[in-house]
């Protein structure tokens, strides 16, 4: 069971990640100025981290401000670790 948690910021080059528990698989909601071009890449980064944590049921809301892959992965990992504490 994952607790609601948050990581990241709304500053440029960052992403705000909010996670909450659900029973309906992975629901990933993305807001991003580069969504049209990079949605697939961003979701891949998020799913890779979720795979690493073996998490199948979760809702993740991402408010992206142009974060690179490493920053997205870091913020998702932080949110998950906080949620799993």
């Amino acid at each position, binding site marked *: 069971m994952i607790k609601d948690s948050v990581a*990241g910021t709304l500053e440029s*080059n960052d992403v705000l990640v909010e996670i909450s528990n659900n029973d309906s698989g992975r629901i990933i909601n993305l807001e991003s100025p580069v969504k049209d071009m990079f949605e697939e890449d961003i979701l891949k980064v998020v799913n890779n981290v979720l795979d690493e944590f073996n998490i199948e049921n979760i809702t993740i809301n991402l408010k992206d401000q142009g974060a690179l892959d*490493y*920053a997205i*992965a*870091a913020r998702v990992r*932080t949110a998950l*670790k*906080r949620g799993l504490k």
Partner: protein
Amino acid sequence: MEMPFIRSALFIPANNPGMVQTAHLLGSDAIIFDLEDAISLSQKDSARELLNEAFKFFKKDSVVRIVRINPLDSPYFYDDINMVKEFDIDFIMLAKADVESVIALENEIKDTNIKIITLIESASGVLNLKDILSASDLVSGMLFGAEDYSLDMQIERTKQSDEILMARQSIALTCKALNKFSLDTPFTDVEDFEMLNIDTKKAKAYGFTGKACINPRQVRYVNAIFTPTQKEIDYAREVVYAANKAKEDGIGVFSLNGKMVDAPIINRSHLVLENAKKAGVINE
């Protein structure tokens, strides 16, 4: 132990992606990714994760990587070390370093290639510097933190820095005697470049090998002062040329332009040329 070439070391908050990913482009010889004072207590975990991912994502280049961790008496010391020791970095900077914390850090990182920079920021730190620097072979150098030192001494910090003169000279002397590099305290007024120049020239004159910066705009001033001047380079070349000739002729001490030249001056000239080469101002 070979000294790293660090004229300037720029502090960067470790939880800011925009700054972390561009830090290596700002011209400093080293970056200090800060997990301590620049990071609020609630964001320590987030900053560690960001650095972890950043160092996997960005390959290491010629800029020296330093991570400042929280002190031993904080709840974050071991959490920091457990993650940071896996990073592709050159140094861990230990806040509020003393003999006990240096040994504790050494025990955790002795199987890595990471070396230690001690942050000296108290009266006892300055007084016990020789013991702190000698507490582990992993200690390569130190940074003087004059703001906390002044707080500990209950003295007013001024731009002229007369109040830290003895501490600075004592630190530079101890580091030189133990063959450790010494980074001077940052100049905290990021708008006053005239005083930054004066302060940096003082640090160089005392024997510091470099200086910390807290703003990217300070870097070029600090680099310029810690780079050998053309006059120093020209003289060093003359000395080395004359020394080589004297050696061929079997002469130990010789005179150059009316002044006696002996081993310390020759050694210093080699160092000037070596630093000029590392700074990219000469090729050979």
